[in-house]
């Protein structure tokens, strides 16, 4: 009887916590307590991360040795750089035509000002298959806000979904709740990048019209858009991934496009949070 009372009490307490935490949605007394506790635990996380780093490096080195990846990594890096340049040049060429038309927008209040990148270490990684999120060591006091885009040198990672004083939760692009409007640099085919169907194709480009052209190895970047009242969360031109396969059937309304992200979301060490320059200036 005592056993059942105790376990029943703990389950009830968990349910109460779930209910309050779920309703507060990151801004309430319980969330403040949680943020405070997270701040207290952060040194332990950082310490454990530092202790584990040599072992992680050794594991990475061994696995890379076994996979003969040393040369491939260098060439891949060079290849990625060239692809970035090609993507930028193609975008620049295409945008040159419309640049004069957009010039008026650029000076207008609707046009997004520049971003500055805030580097932040990843202090915890996804804790389960259904939690595609990481926690980074930068928070409200560093100028981070909810919905800020997060990138690495390789490409788009996701967006900030919750902020505490010194840490933030970043929902990865592979989360079912994530979506980003995107376009094929080579063909200008538009679509929405969402989480894919598994490890082989972590992302998919959704809502691509059947008549749009898409090819294997095409580069997908964020399309970025703005209207008088709204603007895209992600600035235009951030690299997302490469088209690995696509297909269309007579019955489908859209072309099915599988995309492999450029950023390795499973082994993130540090990320850049894109913060609008004006907000950064205010923070200073």
């Amino acid at each position, binding site marked *: 009887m005592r056993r059942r009372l*105790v*376990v029943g009490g*703990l389950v009830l307490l968990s349910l109460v*916590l779930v209910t309050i935490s779920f309703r507060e949605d990151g801004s309430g007394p319980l969330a403040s307590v949680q943020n405070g506790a997270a701040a207290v635990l952060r040194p332990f996380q950082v310490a454990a991360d530092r202790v584990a780093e040599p072992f992680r490096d050794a594991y990475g080195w061994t696995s890379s040795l076994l996979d003969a990846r040393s040369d491939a990594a260098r060439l891949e890096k060079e290849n990625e750089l060239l692809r970035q340049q090609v993507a930028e040049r193609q975008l620049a060429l295409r945008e040159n035509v419309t640049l004069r038309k957009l010039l008026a927008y650029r000076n207008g209040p609707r046009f997004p000002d520049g971003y500055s990148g805030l580097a932040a270490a990843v202090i915890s990684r996804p804790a389960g298959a259904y939690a595609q999120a990481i*926690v980074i060591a930068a928070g409200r006091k560093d100028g981070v806000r909810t919905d800020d885009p997060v990138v690495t040198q390789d490409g788009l990672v996701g967006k900030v979904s919750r902020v505490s004083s010194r840490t933030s939760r970043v929902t990865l692009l592979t989360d079912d709740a994530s979506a980003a409007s995107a376009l094929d640099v080579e063909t200008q085919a538009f679509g929405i990048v969402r989480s894919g169907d598994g490890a082989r194709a972590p992302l998919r480009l959704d809502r691509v019209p059947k008549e749009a052209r898409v090819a294997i190895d095409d580069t997908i970047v964020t399309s970025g858009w703005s209207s008088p009242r709204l603007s895209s969360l992600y600035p235009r031109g951030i690299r997302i991934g490469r088209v690995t396969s696509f297909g269309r059937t007579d019955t489908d309304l859209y072309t099915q496009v599988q995309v492999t992200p450029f950023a390795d979301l499973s082994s993130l060490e540090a990320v850049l949070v894109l913060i609008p320059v004006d907000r950064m200036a205010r923070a200073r």
Partner: protein
Amino acid sequence: MITALRIAPLVFVAAIVQVTVLGGARVLWAEPDLLLVTIVCVALAAGSIPGAAAGFAGGLLIDVMTLGTLGTTSIVLTLAGYWAGRYGETTGRGRRYAAPLAAFAISILAGLGGVALHFLLGEPVAARDALVTAVPSAILAAVLALGVSRITGAIFEPPRGLERPRQVELV
């Protein structure tokens, strides 16, 4: 009180390692869940109430450190600790393969329970992903349990006086 003092460091270290070191790591196509295995082994050795309490505390630590919805991991690990503890109190304790067996079964149940809970909270979850990784995760948990159970066995070794009598004297 002494039991709690023995359990607390174990659970704390396991939760920290789970979030900082093992989070996102892939072994055998699955993610190792050291905290769940630790809770199962602690519960087998210490009983259902300490197991449930350890599960609750460990889950709370995970939810705090990952800034997730408080209580979601706690509820799953509380039940996991309780079930493992009951198994230990009834038939499991002393059996050679109790820990890997319990870790295997509870890993599958906890995975499915976690998916169901997140689904009930309206969060986007893919049951297929959980089902595909359920068996590799369970196998990994069983392998981990072989090592962790040795540590918990050493910490919670019962006093000799409480050992089950192997023979009785008929008067």
